[in-house]
């Protein structure tokens, strides 16, 4: 009896971690930054922090696609291609339609690809992994065909996007202007709206939610269309950061975006996770990438490491939820 009244430290830490799942992640982040400072003293300064945040934001936004789809037990592997499509269409249409028109027209294919994904996943019941991989392949082909029709047009990045992507105001990156409302909207949407609850419900037990009257296919259609839209916006922001639209623009974001969501505690099996964890996950990965670059680790080893992280975190969380 007395033991239950005074729980051991380990149990207490476990409880704290359960109530605030983001806390251990933040500790890990701080530890990584500290390690970086030890490796290269003086690297951590105001400028570095602003830069890290600047590069973490597109990653965190694309990881939002993965977080939302993973909550229903899915994944969106077309997000990287969708972001590239949006960025490329926008950059090549600027000279014809002007910045606003180009941005609006660039988001159309993003939503369209998302709707096709939603159709395949929600109505045809194809596994999201395979479905999004397939639409990604088709979109890549379309992009290549499109590129040949606009070869004469040339491409440019509007000043507004470049300002948003690279600029800094009072030491803070301007992209926070886009990201803070975005993150607030996602966090609020997941916690407080019916749509957010439906995502958790579908991921937790799809049959139960169907039986309680959820029209699953409608949720999937909306979810994947939203995921496409977010990926499209990410692409627009990312091209403002990189400033050189290419056919493989957002490809380097794809794998880390899955890893960020998984590290952030979102279960790949659905039903569990939060966007706040994903944001910290994206920051951790950005710091980790800086570290790996400092260590001059080759690209191959980086992919192996990211793959191993995804597997290890999933395996551990699967074990934990079995016992819990």
């Amino acid at each position: 009896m007395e033991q239950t009244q005074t729980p051991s430290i380990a149990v207490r830490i476990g409880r704290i971690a359960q109530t605030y799942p983001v806390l251990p992640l933040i500790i890990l982040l701080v530890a990584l930054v500290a390690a970086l400072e030890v490796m290269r003293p003086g690297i951590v300064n105001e400028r570095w922090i602003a830069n890290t945040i600047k590069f973490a934001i597109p990653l965190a936004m694309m990881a939002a696609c993965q977080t939302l789809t993973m909550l229903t037990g899915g994944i969106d592997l077309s997000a990287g291609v969708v972001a590239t499509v949006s960025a490329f269409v926008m950059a090549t249409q600027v000279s014809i339609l002007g910045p606003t028109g180009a941005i609006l027209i660039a988001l159309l294919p993003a939503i369209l690809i998302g709707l096709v994904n939603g159709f395949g996943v929600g109505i045809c019941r194809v596994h999201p992994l395979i479905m999004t991989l397939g639409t990604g392949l088709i979109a890549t082909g379309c992009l290549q065909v499109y590129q040949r029709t606009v070869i004469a047009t040339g491409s440019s990045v509007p000043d507004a996007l470049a300002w948003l992507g690279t600029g800094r105001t009072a030491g803070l990156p301007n992209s926070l202007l886009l990201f803070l409302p975005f993150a607030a909207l996602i966090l609020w949407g997941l916690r407080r709206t019916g749509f957010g609850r439906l995502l958790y419900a579908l991921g937790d037990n799809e049959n139960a939610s169907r039986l309680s009257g959820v029209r699953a296919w409608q949720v999937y259609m909306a979810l994947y269309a939203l995921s496409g839209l977010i990926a499209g916006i990410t692409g627009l922001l990312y091209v403002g950061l990189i400033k050189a639209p290419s056919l493989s623009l957002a490809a380097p974001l794809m794998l880390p975006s899955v890893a960020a969501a998984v590290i952030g505690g979102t279960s790949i099996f659905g039903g569990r996770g939060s966007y706040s964890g994903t944001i910290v996950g994206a920051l951790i990965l950005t710091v980790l990438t800086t570290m790996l670059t400092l260590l001059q680790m080759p690209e191959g080893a980086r992919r192996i490491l990211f793959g191993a992280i995804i597997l290890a975190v999933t395996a551990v969380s699967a074990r934990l939820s079995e016992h819990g």
Partner: protein
Amino acid sequence: MARLIRSGWIAGLALFLVLLLVATKLIQPNFGSSGLESLSRAALPFAFATAAQAVVVIAGGIDLSIASMMAVASVTAAVLMDGASDGQAVFVVVFVLLLGAAMGTINGALIVFTRVPDIVVTLAMLFVWEGVALLILKAPGGAAATWLKGLIVGSVSIPGLPTSVTGWIPKSLLLLVVCVAVIWVPLSRSKLGLSMYAIGSDSLAAFRSGVAVGRTKILAYATAGVFAAMGGLVLTMSTGIGEPIPGPYLLASVAAVVLGGVVLGGGRGGLLGPIIAVIILRLVRMDLTLLSVDPNVTTIIEGTIMVVVVMLGGLLAVRKGR
């Protein structure tokens, strides 16, 4: 009854293939033995990827890392064969096949021991094997032994038969049939093969009937690894170099498996249907090229066909589930 439907499906696929070949002949009147040869050579890596995927799907899993494993096998073979003699190349081939088995075993063991679903583990391994391939060879390079390249170019010559007959049988097709038959025919007739169908059909029932579920699963993935290694080898054989960035073999293999009558979810189907299906998919691509369609448009059409096939497969599975 179910068996009859299945063989009917395969017969239908074969008939469709013949019709497509006739259509090809109509599009391109001088399509003949050389056209058949290049079709068979182009389909070869796809066919091995499909065979690998089919084995795993039959055993109730799915392997997303097949294309990456092929890349690892391809670059390993190309790097080791660079400057090696013909005799040494034999050892390289054996080594790469063993490497394939090892990679497959790692995939299977991780799935069994971590108890994480196949699709998640092999997604992570997709990145890992891709990274391994990049570590072995950063950019396309290496070499392939001349006799190996000769194995898949041209048509077979069998003494005693006139060339007018043997000229129609591409060497690459023969290689495919021999490699798949050597592994699959004894396997599917053995206790292990039966166990693979059993765990794919109902893993709990299989466990209760005394099937070593974990071991069977690992062996199914190992077999897939060997097929993937063969796919990587023929890739190096046909291009003469190793390519660290995997091609579009993953989606093609899944689409061909579904089209070939293997149910995603496991327990049913064979290797013949998927391989015919993958040849059909390649032939469609070839016809589009012959019709002088832009190759990028061809990619779109091909991708659309594969996605539609997978979607129809999904719809059928939903129907059956009700």
